[in-house]
């Protein structure tokens, strides 16, 4: 329950500590802090570090849910510490641990290398048959607003890694590509400028690929940007099925190149009226 009187409430923070130089296993330490309404978990950690525990380690940067650095396991759910208000959690004891399913480097710092390696494996870039146009562009690949919207939500991924921490399949199968990489595989495969599905098959059409997902939906629940990786994985499965029975993306549906002169003309046509003041 949120205290509307805005008087600070004493919250006990249970923080999981681990120092690789002195500990073989992590342990929990508790700290009390008066928390005013609106204080985020990240702000609370800063205050605890400043006032009580100077050796506490975590990773954070932007403080506004854009960089994806401060993913933590807060009250047993993966969340961004900068976007989670302490009093909104509704508990007097708040547990904060590093993101699970990643190696724990120190205290609340996970090693996100597995995420990045899997992301790189699915070739997260536009693959086009017209390599000459890619290297020496004569215009722009045409993409309608509808075509853009069909992939838009999957482009919002900030690689915070919360989805892999939430995924029950990743918990037991370290080789499973995971929600982030599979969602990005769909994002690029569905892009009308891309025809790289077959280049990605070696990485995604494997035993540890999308069919290990049984739609627990935990990744979509955890995602702080509304990417909905579970959705993308189901759409990727459909894409793979359609491709295997000969209904894959056709060359004719690929984005056409719009000559630069036409691009400039189109911009001029849709440009707002020139300023008169």
């Amino acid at each position, binding site marked *: 329950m949120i205290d509307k009187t805005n008087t600070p409430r004493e919250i006990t923070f249970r923080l999981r500590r681990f120092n690789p130089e002195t500990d073989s296993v*992590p342990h929990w330490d508790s700290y009390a802090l008066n928390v005013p309404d609106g204080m985020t978990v990240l702000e609370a950690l800063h205050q605890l570090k400043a006032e009580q525990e100077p050796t506490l380690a975590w990773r954070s940067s932007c403080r506004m849910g854009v960089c994806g650095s401060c993913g933590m396991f807060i009250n047993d759910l993966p969340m961004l510490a900068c976007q989670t208000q302490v009093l909104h959690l509704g508990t007097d004891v708040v547990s904060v641990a590093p993101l*699970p*399913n990643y190696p724990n480097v120190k205290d609340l710092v996970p090693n996100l290398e597995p995420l990045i390696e899997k992301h790189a494996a699915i070739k997260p870039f536009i693959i086009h048959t017209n390599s000459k146009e890619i290297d020496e562009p004569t215009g722009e690949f045409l993409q309608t607003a509808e075509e853009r919207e069909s992939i838009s939500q999957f482009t*919002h991924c900030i690689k915070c890694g919360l989805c892999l921490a939430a995924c*029950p399949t990743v*918990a037991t199968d370290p080789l499973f590509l995971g929600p982030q990489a599979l969602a990005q595989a769909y994002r690029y495969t569905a892009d009308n400028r891309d025809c790289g599905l077959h280049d990605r098959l070696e990485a995604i059409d494997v035993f540890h690929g999308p069919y290990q997902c049984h*739609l627990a939906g935990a990744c979509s629940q955890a995602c702080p940007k509304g990417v909905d990786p579970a959705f993308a994985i189901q759409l990727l499965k459909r894409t793979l099925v359609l491709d295997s029975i000969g209904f894959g993306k056709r060359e004719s549906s690929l984005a056409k190149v719009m000559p630069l002169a036409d691009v400039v003309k189109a911009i001029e046509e849709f440009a707002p009226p020139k300023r008169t003041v």
Partner: protein
Amino acid sequence: MNSNKPTAYNNRLGLKGWVYAGRYTFERYLYLGHRLSGMGLIAYMVLHIIETANRMRGVEAWQGLMALFASWPFKIIEYLLFAAAVFHAMNGVRLLMTELGFFLGKPKEPVYPYSSSVMRHRPLTYIIMALAGLLIILGGSSLFFP
């Protein structure tokens, strides 16, 4: 620094992360149920082969086994097996439909508060689970009160 010490702690949740659904959504529990029922059905298939192989030990051994299976504890186990099969099949239909992209809606620009495909196909989930529940109740009534 001691070179024998690991530089990082293996923080994989393992079986606990697979089994413990905690405060995740309903579908997370269905995931657990689907996998557990699947494992139960595989275990049954193995036991069933062992059970039917008992026929090779003669008629008396076979009839003794059948009498054992007609007892109440085995009826309850049989019912649990039936319930697992129904749940697994019905949830499998839901998964098949979603894997082919049905009932998930269309991708769109995410606007806070975000809606997910999991929530969009929740009505389908409830209908299928209600059907599974009905079949399990009907199956139980015919098994226990023939």
